[in-house]
């Protein structure tokens, strides 16, 4: 079975979804992400969905779930590169993903996460 790779970049996790998501893959990804966060002590999760062209309510809920789980484990989640058609579909499905942060590109997402990490460091020192 194929699997979506979870890459480690410093204190961040980078996930790029390059294939059409199906339900099993989504559940596997949830497992992997939560495991990696606790294993590597990641403070941020970046999910790149720029090549995702089809979404349904299940995938939408999965994104919201991953964000919520990461937050429980102490990591911020940023979803980047959502296609216009995907955004419209999610809105029409009534899923506005209220707890998920978004950015236009991987670069912008990184900035957001690093910015959040630096602010957190400043606050703790």
């Amino acid at each position, binding site marked *: 079975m194929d699997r979506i790779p979870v890459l480690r970049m410093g204190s961040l996790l980078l996930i790029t979804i390059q294939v059409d998501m199906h339900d099993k893959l989504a559940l596997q990804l949830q497992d992997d992400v939560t495991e990696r966060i606790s294993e590597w002590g990641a403070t941020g999760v970046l999910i790149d969905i720029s090549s995702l062209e089809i979404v349904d309510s299940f995938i939408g809920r999965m994104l919201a779930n991953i964000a919520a789980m990461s937050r429980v484990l102490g990591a911020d989640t940023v*979803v*980047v*590169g*959502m*296609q*216009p058609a*995907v*955004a*419209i579909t*999610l*809105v*029409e499905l009534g899923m*506005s*993903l209220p707890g998920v942060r*978004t*950015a*236009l*590109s991987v670069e*912008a*997402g990184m900035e957001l996460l690093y910015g959040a990490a630096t602010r957190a460091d400043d606050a703790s020192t």
Partner: protein
Amino acid sequence: MNDLAEIISQNEDRIRAEWIRSMSNTVQRADLISKAELDEQCRDILRAIVAGVKTSRPTEISSSGWATGRELLSEISASRARQGFSPVEVATFVLSLKQPLFAAIREKFVSSQEKLFDTIWSATELLDRLALVTTEAYMATREELILRQQQELLELSTPVVKLWDGILALPIIGTLDSARTQVVMENLLESVVATNSKYAIIDITGVPTVDTLVAQHLLKTITAARLMGAECIISGVRPQIAQTIVHLGINLEDVVTKAKLADAFALALQRSGRTVVRSSSAPTSPISNLFAKRED
């Protein structure tokens, strides 16, 4: 039935001449169509009618025997619809054939009452149906025209303009309905991706009324943009509209709204870490110098 075909072919030139003359009294519109063109159209139609009545009965206008006639008439009325003829003029075109045709029929059956009546009845039935065909084609063409204009209007009225690097503006003019919102939303989101813009200003100065439906459409657009990582600011909220929004109980609390496009632009610049500073070396007019002195 072949009587009719025979009468028409025998008296073709005379019928056509009289037909055109009767039209010139009513609906010829010499300003829109030339005499030679009209003459040719009339000849084609008469031949098509002859061909039609030879193969099938006039009541079977939708059968294959009338295909050429139907096509010809539809074509003529479609071109007339585009030229600007009125519906009455288009329908009268075929109906004006009645008088010359009936005259020819009466001449032929001057002795037999019964035959005369039968032929006239089938001729009138036929021409009525042909007139319906022309009217239908006329309406279809007009509707097509309206549809195309609607489409053009839709595309014209939703431009997305780039104000600054990473800041887009979307001035909306006219009422927002579902179809337009879809176009607006798609345009905006495509532009956000294409220009990699973090801020989008939706200016509703040109929207005459904002009701719950329009507000819902706006919120959907804003949510979709947020999902992609862009932030929307609504500007151009007129005092009247601000009152309506509050009275209707529409919740715009999660959205940044500004009264003027300039305010929204300033906010977008500020949020993207830019400041606008007046250059001290800017040229000043003598009049403003005067005011400056007086202030001292």
